[in-house]
């Protein structure tokens, strides 16, 4: 909206236009998908893959839902994601606060953290499988290690922007260390933490599916791998769409929280 003045010169009114475009964008995506499906179907060489198209895909949903495939995949993946994010948040925020408050810790940790951060989370998989007793734990570990960095770095970046005068004022008014943490530091950087959590969620969600390709027999990633092996392409695309939609919803929830519960004034 920022560079677009059309709302001032008429056309679709300013409230309706973004909503209209939201649907229009989706419609374009689905049309392309439908065209792709139509091409696959009409070409004898690729007719075997016609199930990738939207119509077979949508036809697959009632079955996938009623036989429990979608609900149980969502439950398993959701559980892993929730565990991993909890770990990432409860480790990431203290690490970020340490990074922001202690010069020594920041200097000490800089190279190890940058190095670890650059390792693709999936490359830990063989090690995780050996170290952890269950595949579930291994996957949670992979997701945690992927998503802890955005939380930690966003927290530290938020702290760097905190006005030191706030500490002087609160100290002056008799704040204990606990008060300083809960009343000053955490609210001051809530916005940055939430932004970090949103990024962490994005990373974890992306790592989740390939992490579930191996070993486990549940979850969204597993159901895709399973569909591929059984050549049920309609199931495969259906699950891809489920992954996209859930990811989009989760991200939008974060965006909503950031917008509504953070004190930063919009520009």
């Amino acid at each position, binding site marked *: 909206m920022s560079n677009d003045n059309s709302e001032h010169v008429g056309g679709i009114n300013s409230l309706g236009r973004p909503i209209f475009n939201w649907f229009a964008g989706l419609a374009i995506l689905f049309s392309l998908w439908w065209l792709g499906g139509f091409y696959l179907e009409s070409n004898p060489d690729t007719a075997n893959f016609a199930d990738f198209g939207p119509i077979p895909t949508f036809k697959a949903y009632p079955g996938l839902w009623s036989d429990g495939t979608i609900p149980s995949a969502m439950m398993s993946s959701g559980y892993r994601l929730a565990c991993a994010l909890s770990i990432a948040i409860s480790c990431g925020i203290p690490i970020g606060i340490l990074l922001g408050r202690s010069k020594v810790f920041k200097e000490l940790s800089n190279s190890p953290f940058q190095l670890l951060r650059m390792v693709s989370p999936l490359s830990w998989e063989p090690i995780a499988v050996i170290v952890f007793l269950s595949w579930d734990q291994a996957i949670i570990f992979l997701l945690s290690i992927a998503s802890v960095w955005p939380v930690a770095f966003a927290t530290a970046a938020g702290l760097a922007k905190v006005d030191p*005068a706030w500490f002087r004022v*609160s*100290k002056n008014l*008799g704040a204990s260390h606990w008060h300083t943490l809960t*009343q000053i530091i955490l*609210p001051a950087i*809530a916005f940055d933490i939430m932004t970090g959590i949103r990024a962490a969620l994005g990373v974890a969600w992306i790592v989740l599916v390939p992490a579930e390709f191996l070993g486990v027999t549940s979850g969204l990633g597993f159901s895709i791998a399973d569909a591929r092996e059984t050549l049920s392409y309609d199931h495969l695309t259906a699950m891809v769409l489920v992954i996209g939609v859930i990811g989009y919803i989760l991200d939008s929830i974060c965006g909503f929280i950031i917008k509504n519960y953070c004190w930063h004034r919009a520009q």
Partner: protein
Amino acid sequence: MAALRGVNISIKDLTHRYNPKCPLTFDKVNIEAEPGESLIIIGRSGCGKSTLLHIVAGLLKTTSGTLHLNNEAVQGPSPRWVMMFQAPHLFPWMTVERNVGVGLYFAGWSKAKAKERVDEAISLVGLEEYALKNTQDLSGGQQQRVALARSLVMEPELLLLDEPFSALDAFTRTALQKDVRSIAKKMGFNLLMVTHDIDEAVLMADRALIMAGSPGKIMHDINIDIPDPRDRADPEVQRMRKDLMQSFHEASHAPMDSSSNTQMSSSG
């Protein structure tokens, strides 16, 4: 708010340096004040006024010398001597009301118990209508009023003010100068305020201390015995202003701007 006692201030040979390699910030500062007195320190930028105030507030340590408030050595910050800074530094994630009450919250007061005192402090600075507002929607002057209420709610014995009005427009500044002095007199607490504005000193102080030099020293201690309410146009105020200018000039050995602009420098 209950009428309160002020505090006896006794500062003896106070000396400060920021670290062993730095020169002295100020040297052998001596200040005595009776309960309820309003003291204003005037001096150029950099002579150590803010540092002195931070020490009295317990936010910085002395290098040598003693500092007693009511015969009690100052060990650290306390809600009994509250500092108000040049900028309001409000907490933007809290409403006006919550900002004002935050010191009481730190002291363990429940919301219900604090309510009456918070409301009183807010009405004392004339912001009743803004109690539930976001502080970011307030003007600079209103924000500084919130900061004042946040200090007053602690019912301090000593209010320390570090050039609290220098960022405000002239009208707001004049209004707040009057208000702070009358609140201090009404509640009976001491003011220890730093400024580089001679008018402010004449309008607000019982005694003006002129600080100058490097390291800073208190060069003059001048009684300002003018009845309230003080008005800029009052000949007595004008005369006192001239006297202060003269003393300030003597103390700083620097050419003075004799025009009506009494701002000694543009920054603190």
